[in-house]
């Protein structure tokens, strides 16, 4: 069988905050149809890796490429290829749930945006909330809307930071099935998760991060 194309390639990633090294020498390659789960304790560096991968955080060393293009948060090509659900997704306070999805679908040039939005809205079970403004959504509904923004647009890499957060049991099951289907369609997935059932159902590989360490002290002058 032919080897699938490499979608994400991370080489020698290093990120430190002051003297605390969060991640060092991190390498990762994800091919189309693969799903990699980052696991580890709180503060192990899962979100930092994801933020470096999407370009929201600048790594100290190392490179990140998506489909051969070096990642920069502002590169339109990267914005087109990578769908992200990490903690900094902001909503327009005056646009309703359905209007957010409609805007994203149209911005990505989907010709029948209305149909796409309807499908996703049904799937994330936000039909009843379609006219609500984001400020009035519960935290679980906000999470569903954030996930919907990733599913309503074209993508080749999906990056999710603890996507199971605030979802009910049924919601986590739905998410696992959805991500399995994404993987089956040849999409690459990189996610951080604390939910073993989700990791087991979706991930083809698990990368456990050990956590932060202090940088070695510089040798003192005699």
């Amino acid at each position, binding site marked *: 069988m032919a080897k699938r194309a490499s979608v994400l390639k991370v080489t020698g990633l290093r990120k430190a905050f002051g003297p605390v090294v969060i991640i060092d020498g*991190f390498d990762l390659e994800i091919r189309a149809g693969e799903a990699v789960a980052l696991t580890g304790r709180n503060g192990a560096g899962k979100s930092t890796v994801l933020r470096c991968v999407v*370009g929201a955080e*600048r790594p100290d060393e190392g490179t990140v490429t998506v489909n051969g293009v070096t990642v920069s948060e502002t590169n339109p090509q990267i*914005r087109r290829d990578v769908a992200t659900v990490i903690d900094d997704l902001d909503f327009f306070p005056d646009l309703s749930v359905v209007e957010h999805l409609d805007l994203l679908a149209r*911005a990505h040039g989907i010709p029948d945006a209305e149909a796409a939005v309807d499908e996703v809205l049904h799937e994330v079970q936000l039909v009843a909330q379609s006219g609500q403004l984001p400020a009035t959504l519960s935290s679980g509904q906000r999470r569903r809307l954030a996930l919907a923004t990733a599913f309503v647009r074209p993508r080749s890499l999906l990056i999710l930071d603890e996507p199971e957060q605030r979802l009910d049991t049924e919601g986590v099951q739905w998410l696992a099935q959805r991500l399995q289907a994404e993987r089956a369609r040849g999409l690459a997935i990189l996610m951080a998760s604390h939910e073993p059932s989700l*990791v087991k159902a979706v991930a083809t590989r698990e990368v456990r991060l*050990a956590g932060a360490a202090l940088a070695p002290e510089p040798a003192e002058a005699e």
Partner: protein
Amino acid sequence: MSKKSRKLIRAAAVEPVAPAAQVALDPEPAAEPVEPEREFYFVPAFEPVEVDEKELHDQIKQWRHGRATRTLGQVLSDGYIALFAVVLLGAMLGNVLVQAQSGAAACTTTECGVARLMMPTAMVLAGYALTLSAGRLFGPVLASAAEGFWLMDAPLRRRRLLRARLVLPVVLAGVLTAALTALVAALSGMDAVGLGLWTAAAGAGSAALMALAGAEQAIERTTGVRSVLWLFGIGTLAVLLLVVSIAAGWVPASIAASAETVRWAVVGLLAAAVAGLVLWLSLALRRLERIRRARLLSGGSLVAGMQGAMFALDFGLIRDILVEREAAARGHVRPVRGRGLGVWALVWRDLQRLGRFPKPWIGLAVSLVVPYAADALRMSQLNPLVSGLALFIALVPFLGSLRVLTRSGGMARSLPFKTSTLRSAAMLVPAGLALLWAVLVTPAFIGIAQTGADRSVVGGLTTALVTGLAGVLGGVRWVTAKQPDFGVPMMATPGGAMPPTLMFNLLRGIDVVAVVTAPLIMGAPATWSLGIALVVFVLLRGTFNMDELKAEQEALKREQQTQAREKIRVTRSTR
């Protein structure tokens, strides 16, 4: 970090230093945890004693004072810079007042005189509207989350606990409105008796309206306060229009009442305000017992959020909090189908917003009056600056989509466009509004009053366009400015360490308006202003985004370093 701290952190680390490890998917099943036996405490049955709310309040006050680290004297001696600033500003204000009085002497025509004397009326009405607006926004009676949790849950008499919380905003509203009205009356060249009467009527009226807002808060009724608020808002606009019309000679000065009649009307207003204050304050005090905790805490949380933003002088964040609150209050909208594909979808949504939240139109309508008022009141030289600032403030609510796209990277990352394309698209509708504004105010820049500006049609239109550009660019600068970065090296100031960007936060937006309109004010050709505006636009739309360029450079450098390392590895392995 000290050596000791490093050792402590090392000792606390459970895992060895191994940044990443790939493991098998099936972990071994964990052993069943054994629940330890626990003992629980229950409060024994007792006869509750009566609590004196005043005593409780005094105790809290005492705790707070006990935790103060500095005395008032120390604060004042440390704040000598602030004292100097107050003295300096006071001297400047005094100078302005003296100049205004002499300006009033030069305002010889009846039209000009009547128009100037109508300014205190506009100020009083605006003060009343602002009082009601602030009262509705914050409560006016409010409590912090901690007070809500610890005190409001206990069986206490809320009236005794909250009395001071009601009186404080009432007094504040009265004093602030009175001070502002006194200032405007003095600037208008009013005599001492008139000034005293206007000030008293403004202060008493504002205090009465704040008490009314307090009385309505307890029974959670908003219709009355909202109606009165609209009435005063419209009244302010009408008076401002009348001022302009009289000064421009469009309406005869005789339409305004004589000074004597106005004086008696103000006496009547003062009497009504005092009566209203007594009535509504007693009603509000009586109703304090019924006030719901949620209603108290909502104002408290708003104040806490705004306080946090104020420490960083982040006015954008303050606005965000207010916008979020308004959206939460509205809750639901009738979804409208989008139009267009690509970046035009974003522009269409901006257009659709214009009808969805109509409140910003009021600000834009008021800003239309400003150039006419400035010209009518002999301020034609400063008109581009004053009107540009008014338009900048009025346009900020229309730049909501640009704000969301720039305040955090999340939404911008979801849209497949370059930063400059996104920003340009989000500026398009506000720029259209600024253009429309410029056309509508062109007569003010040509000159409406006998003593005002005297420009040709082309000159007036160009000046109006430059002012419109300054306004929209000022708004863009305001909504796109970054929050102060407390991670950068701090600047030593007498007030303590401060990030350099914090100081400039106060001026953001204003700086752009001032720079763009400066050539016009100094009598230079309008093309200079247009050139400056073009440069500012190029910078604001992110064409040369320094952060992006830096990030690209760094990424390239990292890539080269990685490639070099790969080469070394290959060389070593072949040895």
